[in-house]
């Protein structure tokens, strides 16, 4: 795998999530979770262990620097990597439905974990309104972004990864 390209992609994902989308502000407050999408795609292409490690690292960085509760984002990203990794070598890498659906499911779980945390912190968000105006659009956007990221990773990273695997097997 072209490591530098992978690192660059993750840095870009980090930047988009923590700075760019905050400044842009899409309609309402909906936003894709680019880091989660990248971690899920990596899981499908690289397997659960490396994707979980990447999810752990990038999530912890975001937590420490920006988020109120340290560990929650990291936990959800790590588990997203594992979820993506469940499909490693089980489907063709061309299959775009698997990573997209996994990213949507993981984003759904992540938002509900954070919703629960905000409830514990004292917030009382109206669930159905929040679901309709933020959670649903955001997880669909995350799925869409995952599809694009997966296409990019598959084209630029997967071939080299496959070669490394082949060398290992020899």
């Amino acid at each position: 795998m072209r490591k530098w390209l992978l690192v660059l992609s993750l840095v870009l994902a980090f930047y988009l999530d923590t700075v760019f989308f905050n400044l842009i502000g899409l309609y309402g407050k909906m936003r894709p979770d680019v880091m989660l999408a990248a971690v899920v795609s990596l899981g499908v292409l690289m397997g659960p262990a490396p994707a979980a490690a990447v999810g752990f690292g990038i999530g912890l960085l975001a937590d420490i620097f920006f988020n109120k509760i340290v560990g929650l984002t990291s936990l959800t990203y790590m588990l997203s990597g594992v979820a993506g990794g469940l499909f490693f070598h089980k489907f063709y890498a061309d299959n775009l439905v698997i990573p997209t659906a996994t990213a949507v499911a993981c984003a759904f779980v992540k938002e509900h974990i954070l919703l629960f945390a905000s409830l514990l912190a004292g917030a009382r968000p109206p669930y159905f309104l929040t679901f309709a105006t933020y959670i649903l659009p955001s997880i669909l956007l995350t799925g869409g972004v995952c599809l694009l990221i997966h296409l990019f990773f598959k084209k630029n990273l997967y071939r080299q990864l496959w070669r490394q695997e082949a060398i290992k097997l020899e």
Partner: protein
Amino acid sequence: MKKSFSNKPVLIMVIAIVLLLVLAFFSASSRTIPWLENAVGVVVRPVQTFAFKASNGIAGFFRNLFNATDADLENARLKQELAQYTQAKLDLDELKKENERLRAMLNYAGSIGDYEFVTARVIGKSSGVWFDVITINAGRSSGVEVGMPVISGDGLVGRVTDVGLNWCKVTAIIDSSVTVAVTVERTRDNCMVRGIFNTASKSSELELYYLPTDLTDLVPGDVIMTSGIGGIYPKGIKVGSVEEVMLDTDTSGINAIVSPSVDFLHLEEVMVITDFGGAL
């Protein structure tokens, strides 16, 4: 069971999950993991400062793209024409604007009392809608401590909740878990405001509550200031203005929607009040 623990990746995963849950527990309650946050924060902060500053230009472009009304397009065209004059003129304008913002902030600071301040730049915000936390580039090395109030030229921003060596996190007053003791400037009634969880629009709102039930003359436009009660925030800092007054059917009291005076979406510079004689 034995087989699971002999599986190294699963074991590492379980340990990581336990560690993260412990971190989440401690960070949600007492924030007692500064060593970890410091180490990472010191390294990442300069990069993040650069990234945030560079993003404003790009963000402006996209903002115009999404808000393509006639006025926005006209504004964009005029801005483009202006940009063609010279790059030096633009730089000068930018510096002038920054100077004006800082001057306004200092004037505002001077008007609310004889306090000591540390100025800082916003370098990031929490992702998602669940919490409203802002990261700024001033920390322990500048004398910032947990609990210190943060203001901008427009009014109250929030309170420092986490401090690193050269950065800190500020929980904004629009966070739905935050409450602030306030006074209605015109009527001098003491009440509270808290953040409203709002995902339907970009703008943030506050809810004014604990108003005396016999209070009937609260009207839209009334200015809300901090009351100083509790010693967390200094007295007399502008919080916002009343947008809508309504009857709370549950308590038969009066509630109001308050529009914060600070534009949290475009917040760039802030001041941390390091000493106001309150109970920090």
